[in-house]
């Protein structure tokens, strides 16, 4: 994407360029057993290069947001704008990382990283080179020609992240990418993700259930209400990057965490009759 190819970038209310924007989006899942309203009038904007985390109770529509942004799920109402253009379907320049690594067991790690390229064309030598660079970025260059079953869960997830970045995506969508990992690998992966994000400078939408993880990684943390999902809190995390384990024991870090925890506490109280 060159600057010339995105002429009508919409300014957000506060005047900052917004690259990805959801405007009053509602989403209703229609099924035989009745309709499920997953999102109601949700507005969200993501600035260029921003790391945005989304928190919310289970079933409030977080994964639904990612499905919409990836172009797989048309919205029931409202609009999704990417660089000012309305999102109509899959674009091919959006990276996705799921909770499970979801790799192709029958292909090498390198071939797995190249999968999104292969979807639209035959990978060139430079694509292959880029894939190797990404594997190096996630610390797996020596496993390029190994198969996923030769890797641990955390390593497989890193292959998934490299794959998410292969098309130099406008945004990397991550749906609880570390939820299946053990606590130790989860902490290392969190620090590594920050390094990857800082090295690549991509926008990220990161879904998690872990408040410290969200605060540690993000520029902004958005909290959703229970189903149907609405934004109930939009918190800017004003801590310098790179953040380290020392950051986690600072006063502001804990205040941010406390603020977010209080939101969930209040919600739970409200639900009790």
């Amino acid at each position: 994407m060159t600057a010339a190819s995105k002429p009508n970038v919409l300014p957000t209310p506060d005047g900052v360029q917004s690259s990805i924007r959801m405007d009053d989006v509602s989403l209703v899942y229609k099924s035989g057993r009745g309709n499920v309203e997953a999102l109601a009038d949700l507005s969200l904007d993501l600035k260029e290069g921003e790391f945005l985390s989304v928190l919310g109770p289970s079933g409030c529509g977080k994964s639904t947001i990612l499905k919409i942004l990836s172009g797989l799920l048309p919205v029931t109402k409202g609009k999704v704008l990417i660089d000012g253009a309305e999102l109509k379907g899959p674009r091919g320049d959006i990276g996705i990382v799921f909770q499970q690594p979801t790799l192709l067991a029958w292909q090498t790690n390198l071939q797995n990283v190249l999968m999104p390229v292969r979807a639209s064309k035959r990978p060139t030598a430079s694509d292959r080179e880029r894939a190797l660079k990404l594997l190096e970025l996630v610390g797996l260059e020596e496993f390029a020609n190994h198969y996923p079953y030769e890797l641990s869960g955390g390593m497989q997830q890193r292959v998934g992240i490299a794959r998410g970045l292969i098309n130099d995506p406008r945004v990397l969508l991550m749906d609880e990418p570390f939820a299946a990992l053990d606590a130790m690998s989860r902490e290392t992966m969190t620090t590594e993700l920050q390094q990857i994000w800082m090295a690549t400078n991509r926008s990220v939408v990161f879904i998690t259930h872990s408040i410290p993880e969200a605060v540690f990684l993000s520029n902004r943390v958005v909290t959703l209400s229970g189903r149907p999902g609405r934004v109930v809190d939009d918190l800017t995390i004003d801590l310098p990057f790179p953040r380290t384990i020392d950051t986690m024991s600072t006063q502001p870090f804990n205040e941010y965490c406390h603020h977010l925890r209080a939101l969930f506490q209040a919600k739970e109280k409200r639900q009790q009759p």
Partner: protein
Amino acid sequence: MIRVAKSAASLGVFILLWAAFVQFSGVPNYLVPSPLAVGTTLWQVISDGSIFKHIFTTVFTAGVGYLIGAGVGLLIGSLLAEFSIADKLIRPYLVGLQSIPKVALAPLLIVWFGYGLEGKIVLVVLMTFFPVFVNTVAGLHTANKELIDLYRASSASRLRIFSEVKLPTAASAVFAGLEVAVVLALIGTIVAEFVSAKAGLGYLVQVSSTNYDVPMMFAAITILAMLGIASSKLLRFAHMRLVFWEGPRRNNDY
């Protein structure tokens, strides 16, 4: 090497027990021949070459029927798994056909196709089709939904999703079907040869039976057993080689 030695030893013990049984049980030789008698017969038909016509006929019938049946099973299975319209249109007929014990059709097929190989091959096709078809459909449906979403988000074509995700996912199940089908192919061929044939191992068993030539029956059955074992082993080998990512020690937890 050790495995071969073990199999050889176990076979040796079996033959010894068999010989002892024939020797000491008092069962007359014209009902259960000694291993030596069977071996002699085997040696005779091999050295005068008369057996090869029968082996070839049976292997040819079973092989051609198997290839067609398994191929069509894979094709129709893919079609039905991929297109729900095809599924709605074709499946009721297949379910009906599936409930018929196929060997019951052998005499009818002879009436329709005559005494040549065609009728026999059709029976083998009918018998081998179903296990491959059923396993193909089931296997294709187990493809990871998120993986498919990922392909769709990259604007991949349906054909690419089928060949890169669904088909490899189904490979193991398809092989399981192929292994069942290979045994059915031999059964189908033998039954068809019982009903009507001028050659083939089934024909040989049938003719030897009318002549009370029990050693010859045993020889033919021994060859059939070896054919069955060899083809199953070959398939299992191909399975392990082609579906290499699903070994017992693989880290497939994703």
